[in-house]
């Protein structure tokens, strides 16, 4: 039996939303984002839950200032969980 804390569940949900959105664009996009997160910040996709600014910066590097559609897609995936405090924080930072 796996007992997850609220924080872990939020982290898993955020990770799933990011991975699903990037995979919808193409696997090389997910790979490139993961690679840049690791190269620039020594972090992995699940760490974006605590550091949404890293993901934001990587998406900006890849797509310039027009990455809003990707953010919208991530937001849409997390819509029903948006009231969770940590997810709310993630969405707030990434949408700024």
């Amino acid at each position, binding site marked *: 039996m*796996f007992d997850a804390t609220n924080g*872990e569940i939020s*982290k*898993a949900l955020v*990770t*799933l939303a990011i*991975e699903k959105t990037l*995979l*919808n*664009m*193409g*696997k*090389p*996009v*997910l*790979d*490139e984002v*993961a*690679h*840049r997160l*690791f*190269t620039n910040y020594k972090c*992995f*996709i*699940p760490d974006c839950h605590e550091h949404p600014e890293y993901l934001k910066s990587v998406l900006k590097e*890849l*797509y*310039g*200032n*027009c*990455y*809003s*559609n*990707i953010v*919208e897609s991530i937001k849409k995936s997390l819509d029903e969980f948006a009231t969770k405090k940590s997810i709310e924080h993630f969405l707030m930072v990434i949408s700024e």
Partner: protein
Amino acid sequence: MQTNLEKSQIKKYLLLSILGTGFIMLLANFAGQEVRTLITNLLYVPVPGALVVLSIIIAVRFSVKGEHGRAWILFVGVSVSWFIAEQIWLVNDLVYHIDPFPSLADFFYLAGYPFLFLFSIYYLKPVKGAISKKTLTYVSLTAITLLVPSLYMASGQDSQISDFELALALSYPIADGIVLIPALIGVILFFRGEVNFLWSLICIAIILNVVADTGFLITSMNGSYYMGHPIDMLFLWAYILFSFGVYSHIQIFKKHHPHIKSQSIDDLR
């Protein structure tokens, strides 16, 4: 990951390719009609050929999955169609010495346009949030405004041409007008500083191709077109810009060592 050095190298090679092609065309124009025709026709083998190879590489990398994958498959459709068209043109001109218009080449040229339009829609999709309705309206109006003179010229062709030939001649400006809309949007995004130069290369290439098509139409109408005309340089430059646009994506989405993906959702289970 594409470093600043790689980006500046791509730009350097792009400039060299453009200057190199221009120089070859210039020399060919000084060397007499036969050499000019031969060299210009032969340039249409490696230049569009390189685009086919690069577009296949990026399509294989994205392996049809995802929005980018679908976009690049459509782009393979463009590059292959236009490559076949160029080769048919070359054979008609160099081997059979017949007027390449109208010919099977036109079928392949025109077949590339729906692929190009659908590709550009997918290409702009990640940045669609930055495209306002106002921009879309202005761009569409600009494309229609530019389309009208071309249509007028194409329809005013020699009355001795058949209805089929007239329809064919009219198809090009219409197709150009349609693909011009997403291309202009891409370039506007670049000038607004929303996307980088290498990203917008494909959109610039589409615009250059439309300019070349219009130039070809005008010079064909007034009878001043010949193989090796400066208009051909624009077509070749458009292929080069397309190729470098695709190449920059190959550089961005390089294959990475699998260890980086090692922590993902699976590690949270």
